[in-house]
């Protein structure tokens, strides 16, 4: 029996010797009326049953929002004015994407491992079947625009990694989040190779008034429209009456 256990440990030994134990600051993010962005705390520990090899272990954390198709358009000057002349459809791009690492990325991740696990932002965007030459420029533009808007982020060395065991990082979620499941992935790497990875989800949802209004607009559009008109007319009448009263 003991021999069998030893054998099993030997089989999964190199890959399974170090694994991730994860904690999150919240089970879900609630979008209320006064929602102004949020900070997601991701922390955990490396569980190991043998002393680690001398080469340092590194941690990479990615947080990805729901995937949406995006049409990227490019304008060019025609007869003096700017006109959209070309467009490329990106099949799936995350609405939000953040990468946090414990060491500079080029030291902690090999290119082949990035290709395999799709860790960096360009790898997280899926664009297949584009036959237009220079489609890469469109994907780069998508990343550039979203980076400027704070939706795509690369925070190198923002993961605290203490004594090769305890890690923690805070990922800032912007105010204009869209609803859906956000995927959190954690990678342990040594000499650029992924040792272990773990994936979990966190739900981002509208609550209260936000939820009610959103559902009403989708499920009973005529009621929602009439409610909008009634509010507008009531507000218009109320203001008129209030000002008439004040002038008297």
């Amino acid at each position, binding site marked *: 029996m003991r021999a069998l256990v030893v054998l099993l440990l030997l089989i999964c030994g190199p890959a399974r010797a170090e694994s991730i134990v994860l904690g999150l600051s919240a089970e879900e993010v609630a*979008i*209320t*009326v*006064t*929602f*102004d962005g949020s900070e997601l705390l991701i922390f955990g520990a490396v569980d190991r049953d043998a002393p680690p090899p001398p080469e340092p272990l590194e941690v990479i954390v990615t947080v990805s929002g*729901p*995937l*949406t*198709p*995006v*049409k*990227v*358009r490019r*304008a*060019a*000057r025609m007869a*003096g*004015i*700017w006109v*959209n002349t070309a467009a490329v459809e990106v099949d*799936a791009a995350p*609405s939000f994407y953040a990468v946090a690492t414990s060491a500079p990325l080029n030291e902690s991740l090999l290119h082949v491992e990035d290709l395999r696990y799709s860790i960096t932002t360009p790898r997280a965007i899926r664009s297949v079947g584009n036959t237009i030459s220079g489609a890469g420029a*469109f994907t780069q*533009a*998508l990343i550039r*625009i*979203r980076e400027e808007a704070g939706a795509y982020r690369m925070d190198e060395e923002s993961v605290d990694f203490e004594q090769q065991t305890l890690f923690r990082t805070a990922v800032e979620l912007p*105010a*204009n*989040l*869209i*609803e*859906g499941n956000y995927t959190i992935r954690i990678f342990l790497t040594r000499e650029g190779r992924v040792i272990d990875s773990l994936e979990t989800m966190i739900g981002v949802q*509208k609550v209260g*008034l*936000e*939820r009610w*209004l*959103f559902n009403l*607009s*989708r499920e009973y*559009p*005529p009621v*929602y*429209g*009439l*409610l*909008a*008109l009634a*509010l*507008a*007319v009531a*507000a*218009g*009448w109320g*203001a*008129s009456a209030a*000002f*008439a009263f004040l002038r008297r």
Partner: protein
Amino acid sequence: MQLYLPIAEVSVHTLLLLGIGGLVGLLSGMFGVGGGFLITPLLFFAGIPPAVAVATSANQIVASSFSALLAHLRRRNVDFTMGSVLLAGGLAGSALGVVIFNWMRAQGQVDLLVTLCYVVFLGSVGGLMFVESVRALIRSRRAGPPQRRSRHMKVHNLPFRMKFRVSGLYISVIPPLTVGFAVGILAAVMGVGGGFIMVPAMIYLLGMPTKVVIGTSLFQILFVSAFTTMLHATTNQTVDLVLAVLLIVGGVIGAQIGTSLGARMRAEALRVALAVLVLLVCLQLAFGLVLTPSEVYSLDVGEPL
């Protein structure tokens, strides 16, 4: 304070939205324009998605035009007969306008065409109005009392003549129906109430007195924008109530202040001010078409997978 908008799905500062609403309401009360040509670009600037901005501004225009209309009703500045004739033409026109708009969207380039429409119409209406109103202002200064501006044109003698008591006109219904119809088409294509075209058309084509024009155009705008709001809420579901309430609160207050300011100003001076404003918006849009943008790429985000 930041507020998260449930339909637009962005977080925007409350004071910014109140300010935009207030500014547009002020103009609405002063000039009788709905302000759609101004509020939609301002909302883009505040980071609201275009589809939500267009639909929600229609809802805000309902509130501000209703509030301003009530103020004009108290002064008996509304010609209901003329308003109803214009509205009948307007609803038919906007129905056709929606068909044209959808056809343009199917061809792509809808943004460009809408902007070009804005530049052409704001430019020509603003230019004509500016020249005419400056001339009227100079004339009224020299000659003391302003001349009665009841010019009778040949088209007014077409059949189906009607008495428009409040406007002091006895003309054929064909010119106002045509004006309403044409403005309705433009309103639907450009996503505005159409007051900035309606007001000069009523003054220069129908020969209505300026004071009555504003109340009457508000009457027409109220119904056209209510129609538009319902259309957007039921087909695209892009009316954001939280955004609308903020714009409305700012707007109704602005409209009341605007109406009393407008009543104190000379009619000619009012027209010069409106002409300058229309020309400024036109120039801004024209520059946007011609100047090299800082980012030549733009994103059109689809529904989550």
